[in-house]
């Protein structure tokens, strides 16, 4: 349905068009969205715990975590509030390298990411492994600011950005796909931007 009188001057050129998922628009800035106040986590207090259900598998402090292999990833990101940002540059530890350091392979098909603010979000294990996702420590070569989830945030660029949990302090393997914070509040269980899986009722 065309909207009477709406003519946009913002139509992106066709070569960039193909990089913008349906219903998204290109954003130059980096908007901030979160459900609560911004926690200030000092790196000396920071730790990251890998769990299987309630059982901790391994825990790293900031120095130990930074000693893991660092990988660079430059990716387009897509927020469910409809902005897409091209070529965001991150550096961090691939989830594959975290599992390798813990000496395990994914014991179940599902994970819950946990944040210092109590935030959780679920992601299938296959979407976090094989180089698809990392725990990011740097953005544009600099420590990630608290607003954007620092000291460490999850980066799962091929899913809507609420899956990229801020202020990350752990990953937990779960037996089932357990909905996290936004998934319990009306947002899609998987969140693929290319299939426009924004809300629970989307196919």
């Amino acid at each position: 349905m065309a909207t009477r009188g709406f003519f946009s001057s913002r139509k992106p050129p066709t070569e960039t068009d193909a990089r913008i998922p349906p219903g998204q628009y290109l954003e130059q800035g980096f908007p901030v969205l979160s459900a609560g106040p911004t926690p200030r986590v000092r790196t000396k207090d920071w730790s990251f715990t890998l769990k299987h259900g309630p059982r901790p598998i391994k825990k790293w402090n900031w120095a130990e975590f930074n000693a893991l292999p660092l990988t660079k990833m430059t990716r387009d990101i897509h927020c469910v509030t409809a902005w897409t940002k091209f070529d965001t540059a991150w550096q961090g530890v691939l989830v594959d390298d975290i599992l390798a350091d813990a000496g395990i392979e994914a014991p179940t098909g599902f994970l819950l990411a946990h944040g210092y603010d109590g935030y959780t979000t679920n992601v299938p294990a296959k979407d976090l492994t094989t180089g698809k996702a990392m725990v990011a420590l740097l953005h544009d070569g600099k420590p990630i600011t608290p607003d954007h989830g620092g000291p460490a945030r999850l980066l799962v660029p091929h899913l809507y950005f609420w899956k990229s949990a801020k202020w990350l302090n752990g990953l937990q393997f779960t037996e089932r796909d357990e909905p996290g914070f936004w998934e319990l509040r009306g947002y899609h269980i998987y969140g693929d931007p290319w299939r426009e899986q924004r809300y629970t009722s989307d196919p």
Partner: protein
Amino acid sequence: MSEAPQSPWQTAKITRIEKRTPRVTSFFFALSRPFAYRAGQHVDVRLTAPDGYQARRSYSIASAPESGATIELAIEKLDDGEVSPFFHEVAAVGDEIELRGPLGGHFVWSDSDGGPLLLVGGGSGVVPLMAMVRHRTFRKSAVPVALMFSVRVWDEVIFRDELIGLDDRRDGFDLVLTLTREATRRPSDYSRRIDTAMVMQALARLPQPPTLAYVCGSNAFVSAAAQALIDAGISAEIIRTERYGV
């Protein structure tokens, strides 16, 4: 479940347009498929150009859930924006606009959630808080509510007459206005940015400490105001935020 899946998008007809402030105008939409919603929820609006290009944005619902199949959106005009200038300059009564909702299940309040409530809004961030205040009024709820509302100048106080009218009832709703670029007009108000001391004084107007706090506005506003709440002793766990992104 043999029902055919329905598109989540529906058309809604603009039935009334009301200027609220020089920069904010309310648009009333008659839903073609009415939905139940909770105070604080938003809708997504989608505009389509003749070549198929679409722009979509989120807008909070300003009306109370009790007000029926017409919802009110209050949209602030950003001069260099894409969607808000369309509403201010082009949209007219009778136009049909595509929207979907209700959306968002976190920044919501019903009187059954109890209180006291501390509501903190900056500019158009007051919109979802207005839905909560109106819901409280509809339900004749006794939940104590303090609304701290920050704008630049007196003429930018969205819903001003309605809010002052509710404040005058002295029924447990307290309005704290703060003007950041102009002298205050009411003795109980302020003329500076929201800070910890102001939050403490607003808290003193509530009979008990709040059990829930809602902060909404631009990202910069929400960050600063949420920090002022935390510094005033409010636990981060009870603070819910909605950031308009920019």
